[in-house]
């Protein structure tokens, strides 16, 4: 891989082009939650004052406590009461099957999954938690810079059609969030969850589905293809398959519910035609419950 300056620059610009929108959208989404009753208060707002510390580069200017700072030459940040930070591990399905939207007006499943994951990460990091990705891609860390690293990690796509949950290198007793469409083979999912449960990791499973996957509004002679075109299925009367397809989908959901219940995880379905805010609220509350 060449690392000529021009190449680097082109790449970094391409990366930077995708990062800010995702980050901005995620921050925006997270902001809506912070204003709600479930939001965590920032430093200085409540009774859980812990200490003042000198301001460091990277601190937001509004977090500086000017009253305290005025009493001396340095600037101080008021920190809230120290809590034992949780590590939250994210796994977001980046496979080809997520790059699908049945309508141009709808976001792709992958985009929605990343947005929700990112927004959750924003909330968690502001809450002082450590957030990382599973599989050793990005170890859990604190602080705003971690958000940039997360966003960068989310901006890569995987070429395979369907991805398996990554449960390696999970910190014991950490929390985990798995976001995917969970359409792929069920065995790896079960294996991953079991492995996580063995390590005392609990978390949530968010299944992101496109409305057409839920409704199966197809008729006539059709060849169905996966996004990567590795799998296909031909039918002469798509309309007649609908009932059986819906049954299979319901089975899959049931199975996911059971597996998650068995391992102490929480499970929910999100459709891309609903608002991301809704999923975020659920996810956030579920995480609080997990904690």
């Amino acid at each position, binding site marked *: 891989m060449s690392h000529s300056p021009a190449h680097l620059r082109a790449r970094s610009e391409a990366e930077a082009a995708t990062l800010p929108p995702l980050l901005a959208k995620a921050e925006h989404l997270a902001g809506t939650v912070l204003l709600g009753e479930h939001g965590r208060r920032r430093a200085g707002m409540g009774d859980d004052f812990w200490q003042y510390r000198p301001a460091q580069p990277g601190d937001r200017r509004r977090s500086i406590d000017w009253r305290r700072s005025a009493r001396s030459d340095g600037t101080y940040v008021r920190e809230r009461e120290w809590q034992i930070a949780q590590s939250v591990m994210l796994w977001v399905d980046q496979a*080809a*099957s*997520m790059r*699908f939207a049945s*309508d141009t007006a709808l976001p792709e*499943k992958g985009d929605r999954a990343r947005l929700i994951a990112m927004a959750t990460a924003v909330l968690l990091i502001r809450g002082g938690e450590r957030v990382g990705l599973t599989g050793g891609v990005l170890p859990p860390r604190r602080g705003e810079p971690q958000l940039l690293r997360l966003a960068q990690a989310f901006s890569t796509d995987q070429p395979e059609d*369907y991805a398996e949950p990554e449960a390696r290198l999970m910190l014991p007793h950490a929390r985990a969030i798995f976001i995917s*469409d969970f*359409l*792929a*083979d069920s065995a790896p999912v079960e294996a991953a969850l079991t492995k996580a449960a063995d390590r005392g990791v609990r978390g949530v499973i968010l299944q992101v589905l*496109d409305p*057409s*996957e839920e409704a199966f509004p*197809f*008729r*006539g*002679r*059709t*060849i*169905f*293809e*996966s*996004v990567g075109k590795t*799998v*296909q*299925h*031909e*039918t*002469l*009367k*798509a309309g*007649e*398959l609908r009932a*059986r*397809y819906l049954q*299979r*989908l319901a089975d*899959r959901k049931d199975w996911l519910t059971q597996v998650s219940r068995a391992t102490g995880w929480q499970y929910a379905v999100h459709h891309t035609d609903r608002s991301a805010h809704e999923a975020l609220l659920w996810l956030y509350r579920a995480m609080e419950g997990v904690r």
Partner: protein
Amino acid sequence: MTLFGIGFLSPWLLLGLLALPILWIILRAVPPAPIRRMFPAVVLLLGLKDDDQVTDRTPWWLLLLRILAVAAVILGLAGPILNPREAGERGSGPLLIAMDASWASAGDWAAQQEALEALLLEAQRDGRTVAMLRVSDPEPLQFQAAETWRSRLPGLAPEPWLPGQDLYAEAEAALDDGAFDTLWLSDGLAHDGRADFLAALESRGAVRVVQSARPLVVMAPPGFADGAIELTLWRVETAGSYAAHIAAHGRDPSGNAAVLARAGAEFADGAAEAQVSLSLPAELRGRITHFEVEGQRSAGAVALSDDSLRRREVALIAGRDDREGLELLSPLHYLEKALEPNADLLQGALGDILPANPDVVVLADVATLAPAEEEALLAWVEKGGLLLRFAGPRLAASDVSRAEEDALMPVRLRAGGRTVGGAMSWGEPKALAPFAEDSPFAGLPVPEDVRVSAQVMAQPDPVLADRVIAQLADGTPLVTRKRIDQGQVVLVHVTANAEWSTLPLSGLFVQMLDRLAVSSSATTPDAESLEGTTWEPLQVMDAFGALEDAGTRPGVDWPELVAARLGPDLLPGLYQSEDRRLARNVITAETELAAASWPARIPVEGLSRPRETPLAGLLLSLALALLAVDVVASLALAGRLTGGMRTAAVVLLALGASPPPAAAQSTDDFALAVTSEVVLGHVLTGDPQLDQMAYEGLTGLSETLFFRTSVEPAEPIGVDLETDELAFFPFLYWPVAADQPIPSDEAYAKLNEYLRSGGMILFDTRDADIAGFGAASPNGQRLQRLAQPLDIPPLEPVPEDHVLTRTFYLLQDFPGRHVGRDVWVEAAPPDAERIEGMPFRNLNDGVTPVVIGGNDWAAAWAMDESGNPIYPVGRGYSGERQRELAYRFGVNLIMHVLTGNYKSDQVHVPALLDRLGQ
């Protein structure tokens, strides 16, 4: 081949219909093509089997649709025709279509063309070759395929003459020996030589005649009797009564073709002739170019008018008051008698008559004229008038033209004149000498008994010989003439009464007046006098009675013009020789028309018959429509009809459905929107780009006003002059485009009401006034057209002290995108004066209703949403300065609109302060 009253051009194609059942089976067997669909949840589908192993079949109604479409294509290609002519009526072998093609068939030429088209179509179907022969212009026969003739059909036209013996003979010579059937399109009139031609045709095959039943009405040349125009109409078919309408065409005072008068004529039952007399003022009568029987559209129904209708206006002025009871001694008596039948006489003072612009002024024994009269008379002569003077005792006694030639006299006169053959003189009264060749009187017979006993004498002069046009037997000039510019002065050296000569008593007097074109005869000029003249065609008439410019057609010699038959060498029309005009009409007084009579053995039929209607186009369109429906239905079945495609399909199916209802502006909403804020309006010109620019310009101006002044306008609004109420707008910007439509009369009524009630319109020609104010640029001309019906006061360029120069900013220039010249506003009242000690004049109250300029202000004002200028103005800093000045002009203008002359009233401030005791 004919099935159920429908004939087919290529019936064997119908065999294709047999293939339809096979098509049904094939279509039924082939399932619709699969659609490829991206679907991540396909993994859930894996392993699912279709219940029904039989393919998803095309539904029966879709099959039917397709079969119908194919059937329609097959039927359409087979060339179906509704109402085909029965096979029995039609012959085989070559067909000759003979046409009289004279003006008499011009009236229903369109119907004949249609009939021909049908005939040719039929011949095409039967595979017959066709030849066409126009008897009025025979050419050798050419038997060709009917399609060839069909393509040439629109070029066929009738000729403005009738076929006669010679033309029929020529047509007969054009026939070849082969056998053919004939179809004769007759014009319905009897012609000499037709029987021979018919016999010749019958010897070669069957003859069928098609003849129109349309009543033929023609008009004889107009006559003039008892001060009214006599119009005579003839018709061929005399049964039943018939009301004809006659229109007199001519030029209106501004020179445009117009119908000057109308009359109706009624044919009684059985009458072949109808008459109507039309009494018109001489002025109107002189402008008539032709009469036409309306609705006939043939050359026979048009009668051109010529000099025979024109009556010259002759002003008679005598120097001596008429003495009561001495009529025969009156200097004008003989002139009146001679001129009355053919000319309109004007009498009165010279000053009153000249403005009426008579053709001729006759001064009988008038010696001196007032200088003003003389000047006016001279100017009139120079413009082509004919001044005819008669001598008499007064002239002889006066000093007029004695020492040097008077401008209004052709020659100098010797004092006293002479008297011959009287009691106190020697010699015999003199007779006239024969007229010289180059005299206008040449050829007139000189009566023996004309004697001249007294006359005024011309002073011998080098130019005298050229000016004499009649002389006495002893060589003394009797009539002299001088040309002045386009006009002429003629002096008759004797009196106009019988005092000095017997000339006024003779017929020669009238003829001489005639030759001088003092009068023009109502009858055709006598043949001898016109012998040898050549007549140049001015306008010629085609068979439809339409006049066209004669172009470079050769002239026609006299006897031929009236005597020869009309033909390719002599077209009906208007001919001119010197200053006479003669109309050669299709119908002359001698024309006799008779209905055509055919031998009983010849079948005659009318033009109208059930029309053969080809159905191919209809069926093919139906097939296309069915296929379009099929496309939509197939897409719908295959599940590919989604979103936008569904809309498109619906649009496709609803072709021809009503257009979307225009966003009707509720009047109340509009009024509320416009009146709740100050709104600047621009007139919608119909040019979207220009309207957009005007909108952006006013947006920019509104923004500027908002920032700089306390005027806070809302979004500007485009105003449709036809529909919107104008009263709500204090100000309208009207950009002028060269091709902008002229508003309706109602819109102008609204605009005038708007201007009167205090509105202001800024007209912007946007052309920088390149050609000076409104003169020649297309936009300027358009502005003139647009503003013509508007109630606009007198205008002047903005004066230095106009209130517009100081309503908000102090300005002296009003640039826009162009730094144009003058901007025009309502003129100040003429009595506006500067009061001592005041900086400005006390100008008119109120707001100028219009401001007119060409500086393209909207472009300079135009701003986008973020406040950036849209169009470039000038260069660099000076350009920005110019834009700034444009904004300032806009601000001043709106301030002027909204505050009126508030700033102007400040001139009274000192006086007010004074009164307050300050």
